[in-house]
């Protein structure tokens, strides 16, 4: 009998495997817990937006484990975190969607740029860029607030919500995401993941 090596197929980035479910659950739980812990710290001018250094977790989970994990970490993590803080899971659903979308976009970068990420350093740099781009695009969803809160004006959402949150979250994503990528990469390689 001859042993033949079977070519291993790369799982689709959109598949919902056991690994995706567990990583999503861990990401969402971490995001919710850190949301709960840091809710009290506010940026002046961002009245309904808390400073969220842990926002980098969301972009990291998307970048490291794919768009589905990124989306679920952001969406479920924000829903659960809002519920834990007392804000209410359903009070601002568009914010949860924005977090989910940011995680999803961060998760698309490794798929698009796999050939360019040849070293851990380039991977960390790409992770920082992915985090910022995902934040800028993903949080455009908060303009759904124009529909969900018809009293809100475009300029109000832009100046008191979108710009402050994008600046704060981009800084968090640009710093925390590469730090986590640099910490996780060697462990991931050691584990054979």
């Amino acid at each position, binding site marked *: 009998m001859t042993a033949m090596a079977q070519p291993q197929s790369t799982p689709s980035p959109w598949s919902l495997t056991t690994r995706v479910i567990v990583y999503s659950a861990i990401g969402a739980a971490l995001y919710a817990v850190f949301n709960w812990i840091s809710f009290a710290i506010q940026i002046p001018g961002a009245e309904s937006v808390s400073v969220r250094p842990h926002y980098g977790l969301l972009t990291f989970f998307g970048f490291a484990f794919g768009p589905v994990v990124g989306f679920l970490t952001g969406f479920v993590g924000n829903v659960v975190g809002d*519920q834990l803080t007392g804000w209410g899971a359903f009070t601002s659903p568009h914010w949860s969607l924005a977090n989910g979308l940011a995680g999803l976009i961060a998760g698309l970068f490794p798929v698009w740029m796999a050939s360019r990420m040849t070293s851990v350093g380039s991977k960390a740099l790409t992770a920082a860029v992915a985090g910022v781009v995902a934040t800028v695009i993903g949080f455009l969803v908060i303009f759904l607030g124009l529909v969900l809160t018809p009293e*809100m004006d475009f300029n109000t959402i832009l100046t008191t919500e979108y710009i402050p949150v994008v600046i704060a979250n981009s800084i968090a994503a640009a710093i925390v995401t590469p730090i986590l990528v640099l910490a996780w990469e060697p462990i991931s390689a050691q584990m054979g993941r």
Partner: protein
Amino acid sequence: MRAAFAYLGRGSWLARRDPRSILLAAFFFVLGAPQIRDSRHLALILAAAVGYYLLAGIPWRAVRRQWLLLVVVIGAVATINALITGGQSGGFADAETHVLVTLPPFGTEVSAEGISLIATQVLRFGAIAAVGFPVAYAIAPGDLGPALRQLRLGDRMPVMVDLTVRFIPTLSTEFGETIDAQRVRGFDPLRTGGSPMTRLRRLAPLFVPVTVGSLTGAEDTIDAMDLRAFGVGKRTWYRRLQMDTASRVVVGAFAAFLVVATILNVTGQSEHYLLPFLVP
């Protein structure tokens, strides 16, 4: 430091209902409430929402800080919106405003329309929060997974939400232990100063061990699920929920609200209302 969903409404009328009815009620309400703009309608809706909230038997002492936070944040957002727009947004976008006060130094106008819009937002968000609280406090955490499963979301998503709820207390405890461990090494989590970037980098000794530790620990969970052939076939659930008549009435009432709200919105019968006593 321990975060967890407290089952504060245990034993209440609403907690005895099928959790699916509480989830569906909140879902329908969130879709319906933004379609109502008239503050008189919203006042009635808030009263009904508070009545529903009281059925959950959530002790006031346990949630009063959360209510205070909600009112303060919603009030602040609504006030800033009213000040920026001068009341010329929503249904009053093209209206001539009734200016009550002009605030220095920029001559910001406080108008009757702006205050009416603030009232509308506070009433709506208050109602949404009143219907949303029972989702957190009147559903047993262990019932969330079966409820989502029986809402036909498949097996994987409910398991993921179930796992998230179960991981939260563990991870918050781990976070507390990590802070203690780093304090022993001289780390001061309350230290302030420096640029936002410096402050973020300073948090790395907290984020990195908790995150990486959780991910490496996740392998055990993944192996356990794989060994039980999770995701291969249809999963059976130990808990089976029953939708009783009262639960059906709850779902029916909120579905009816959504229909009425949509009709009012489409026919333009719930536009922003200018509070008459504010007009000089």
